[in-house]
């Protein structure tokens, strides 16, 4: 194998040729003979009872095939959309999960909630028919405000105080006591703004039902087709698992929003069976704004206690997390186990206590969005540390350095349930400070002041827990599934290799990186390896792609499978070369008898395995191996991000002038792809800090429901980015990798806001730091 295409090489991507020539195949590009089109009936109200649905006029429209509602879905015995993570409350009781029928039956609880589906022979007819359905609602006062929600009427009959859970982590007493003894306490209130994920490809689904075989096929925009199949079978009970195939073809970005099991995909498949013809639905962007799960939306009070030497002695965090109207698939876990567990950050704070109230409101469900809990945690920690430095008049970088977990302290057990495996936080801090020319910031500030600009610099030293997840631990904490990954390697009779992975690529480039890993391990040409993913009919099982898990868990599974291929191949080679098994070495694609010139290539061994003439007696033919990999621990990518901004004092416009990211992802398979992941994550984080905000009015109407009013980062909002790395390999997976997908979105918001705070000299600025907010802050 050519070394320039193995592990560590910046190989150009296999997937690009189809995308740059317009021959990608996304769900909406697929069509079936006899296909019909769906449009959804959606609630115009944030909270209302459904009294009556009259669809005669719609049904009479030419081309309309069916108008189906939640009532019929319930009659057909379809179950609720489940929440996959059972969070235990402070008092040991289970969280309170409100029933979530895919199509609302009696009541609607957020604007855009689907309660019916119209099926017609064209999109235009389906949309027109949906308009002709008259639904009588009884409007109720919506509960929108996150603070008032727990003292308001119940949204769901069984949920007192609209509280899904009251959760805590860490030692409250010890933290209170340490806080009391602290020489200085910094306390701030923090808002983590609601975001709307906005993958550029809207969600879509194409449902197909074959009556003669009872086979159901769902093409859909999913990050985890096997999980979708499992949930649709086991919980929604649309079809048994062996009669349901879920295929996620090319998927145009996800960022978490395509992990979840949604109403629409479910309804499309069910409708296809009801009407006996394929049914397709593609969300408009307006629908995506309303009905994709949103992200973040926290209100937090945080206190950091320091002793007289500026050592962190206690951190106390109290958060209210908006979960929206229903618990989405992983909605409960994001503000708890993916959030509270990260509160140690990079620091050796000995006492930490976190409490989180998960609150229902009449808004779209909130779930994982790039980073999922970890950006929120990083924002809390890095904002309070920054504020403490300012209050104490010490350099923010020095205060961080002083409190960092030193490189010789690993494995390091935090007070919030994690054991950090490895790291060198000072190394990434130093590298980032050098790249930022941190020591010369005063000169740059003075120079900017001469131009009427206020310049500021901000740091974020983040850590994340990735490589989700050790199954036993996750299940003990409430996960409904294991979080291992599967992989399969088939060496074909002619020696080329087909790889099957349960990870799913929707922009991450797995077809390239996974091929690099397998080519490297098996010593075959990169071009001789093809990666298959995203189809439950072809790949045995999988948990999909989220939480920066694919290379750490999915890649590790492939390493295990490769080991098995080599082990079996060695037996075949030993037989054919008339050598002892112990004397066979495998390197660079050759099985060689040690200290001899007798060898066989992997291709020759593969051929022999499928044409087993000269072959071991007790060995099965074929050269195909599977592996499931369950990680021992999370992985812990960490690094330092530094943002530099200039604020225009007349307009309040914040210009991001530079952004430096130094990340420790452990070993890197393809640096080109990793840098790209950082770029994308950083700009999403910059979007959160400066531009993006999902806003509901007091009637629960989404005020930011299109690209006219939800401000996406565009090319001219950001500068070129500086991306660099330090490396401490992960000690517990075969590749030494940690995962890189979320880091940018985790570090950037805190770095940017810290820079804005530095420029303004006031702490009173919330995300997004829009020109209006900044201008007001400047007026004092």
């Amino acid at each position, binding site marked *: 194998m050519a070394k320039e295409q193995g592990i560590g090489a910046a190989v*150009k*991507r296999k*997937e*690009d*040729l*189809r*995308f*740059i*020539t*317009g*021959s*990608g*195949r*996304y769900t*909406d*590009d697929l069509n079936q003979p006899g296909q019909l089109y769906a449009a959804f009936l959606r609630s115009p109200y944030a909270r209302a009872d459904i009294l009556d649905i009259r669809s005669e006029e719609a049904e009479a429209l030419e081309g309309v095939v069916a108008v189906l509602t939640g009532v019929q879905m319930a009659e057909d015995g379809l179950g609720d959309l489940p929440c996959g993570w059972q969070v235990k409350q402070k008092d040991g009781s289970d969280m309170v999960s409100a029933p979530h029928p895919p199509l609302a039956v009696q009541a609607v609880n957020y604007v855009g909630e689907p309660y019916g589906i119209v099926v017609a022979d064209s999109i*235009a007819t389906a949309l027109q028919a949906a308009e002709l359905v008259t639904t009588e609602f009884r409007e109720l006062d919506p509960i929108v405000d996150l603070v008032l929600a727990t003292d308001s009427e119940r949204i769901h009959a069984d949920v007192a105080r609209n509280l899904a859970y009251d959760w805590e982590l860490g030692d409250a007493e010890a933290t209170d006591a340490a806080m009391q003894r602290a020489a200085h306490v910094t306390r701030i209130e923090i808002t983590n703004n609601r975001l709307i994920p*906005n*993958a*550029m*490809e*809207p969600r879509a689904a194409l449902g197909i039902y074959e009556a003669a075989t009872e086979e159901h096929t769902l093409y859909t925009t999913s990050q985890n087709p096997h999980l979708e199949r499992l949930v649709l079978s086991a919980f929604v009970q649309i079809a048994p698992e062996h009669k349901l195939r879920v295929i996620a073809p*090319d*998927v*145009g*970005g996800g*960022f978490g929003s395509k992990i979840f099991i949604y109403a629409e995909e479910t309804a499309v498949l069910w409708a296809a069976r009801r009407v006996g013809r394929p049914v397709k639905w*593609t969300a*408009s*962007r*307006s629908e995506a704004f309303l009905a994709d799960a949103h992200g973040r939306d926290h209100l937090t009070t945080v206190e950091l206690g320091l002793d007289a030497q500026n050592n962190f002695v206690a951190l106390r965090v109290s958060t209210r997390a908006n979960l929206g109207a229903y618990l989405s698939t992983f909605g409960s876990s994001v503000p708890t186990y993916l959030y509270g567990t990260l509160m140690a950050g990079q620091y050796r704070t000995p006492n930490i206590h976190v409490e989180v109230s998960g609150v229902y409101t009449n808004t779209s469900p909130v779930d994982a969005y790039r980073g999922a809990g970890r950006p929120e945690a990083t924002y809390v920690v890095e904002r309070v540390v920054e504020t403490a430095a300012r209050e104490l008049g010490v350099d923010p970088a020095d205060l961080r350095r002083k409190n960092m977990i030193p490189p010789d302290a690993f494995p390091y057990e935090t007070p919030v349930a994690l054991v950090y495996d490895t790291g060198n936080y000072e190394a990434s801090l130093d590298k980032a400070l050098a790249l930022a020319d941190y020591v010369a910031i005063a000169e740059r500030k003075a120079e900017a002041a001469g131009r009427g600009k206020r310049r500021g610099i901000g740091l974020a030293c983040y850590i994340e827990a990735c490589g989700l997840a050790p199954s036993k631990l996750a299940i003990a904490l409430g996960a409904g599934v294991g979080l291992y990954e599967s992989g399969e390697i088939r060496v074909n009779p002619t020696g080329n290799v087909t790889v099957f992975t349960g990870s799913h690529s*929707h*922009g*991450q*480039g797995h077809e390239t990186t996974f091929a690099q890993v397998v080519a490297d391990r098996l010593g075959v040409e990169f071009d001789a390896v093809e990666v298959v993913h995203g189809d439950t009919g072809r790949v045995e099982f999988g948990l999909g792609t989220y939480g920066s898990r694919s290379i750490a868990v999915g890649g590790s599974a492939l390493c295990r499978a490769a080991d098995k291929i080599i082990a079996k191949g060695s037996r075949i080679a030993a037989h054919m070369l008339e050598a002892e098994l112990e004397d066979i070495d495998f390197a660079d694609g050759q099985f060689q008898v040690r200290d001899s010139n007798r060898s066989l290539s992997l291709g020759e061994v593969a051929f022999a395995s499928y044409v087993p003439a000269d072959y071991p007696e007790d060995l099965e033919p074929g050269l195909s191996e599977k592996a499931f990999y369950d990680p021992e621990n999370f992985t812990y990518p960490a690094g330092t991000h530094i943002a530099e901004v200039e604020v225009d004092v007349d307009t309040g416009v914040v210009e991001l002038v530079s952004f430096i990211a130094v990340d420790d992802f452990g070993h890197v398979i393809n640096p*080109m*792809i990793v*840098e*790209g*992941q950082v*770029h*994308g*994550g*950083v*700009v*999403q984080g910059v979007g959160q800090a400066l531009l993006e905000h999902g806003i509901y009015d007091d009637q629960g109407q989404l005020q930011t429901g*299109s*690209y*006219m009013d939800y401000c*996406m*980062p*565009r*090319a*001219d909002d*950001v500068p*070129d*980015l500086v991306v660099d790395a330090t490396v401490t390999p992960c000690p517990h997976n075969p590749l030494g990798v940690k995962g890189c997908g979320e880091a*940018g979105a985790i570090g950037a918001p805190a770095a940017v806001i810290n820079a804005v705070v530095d420029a303004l000299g006031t702490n009173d600025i919330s995300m997004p730091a829009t020109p209006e907010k900044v201008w007001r802050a400047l007026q004092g």
Partner: protein
Amino acid sequence: MQVEVTVNGQAHVLEVADNTLLVELLRENLGLTGTHVGCDTSQCGACTVHMDGRSVKACTVLAAQAQGAEVVTIEGIGSADALHPMQEAFRDCHALQCGFCTPGMIMSAIDLVSRNPGIDNAGVRAGLEGNICRCTGYHNIVRAVIQAAQNM
């Protein structure tokens, strides 16, 4: 209504509803699914094609307005074995991840560069302001466009 339109050098006479958009004509009538739809407010640029030599958002043009026009889509600018320099540069610079914005981005970029040879970083950023990419953070897209500008 009937529309006569030339797409990627091939003349078509098509029967379409009056309210058909150019992007629908391309995707549904001609099966040219390389042109994508990313929004419904003419904001994202995923649908960008060339009409009579200028980039247009195909979700904002009626099929009727394309009467007699020469339309070029992503499928028409190069092929797998003879890529357009802009396509080549996008691959070379890792200017795409999920690929969904890519056709529109490439079509906008070709038009931008052909009208502004020698364009610089700030010019590219301002010129691509009408195309949203959620994956790449734009860094590598800007690099690619500048690289292609040198080869076009």
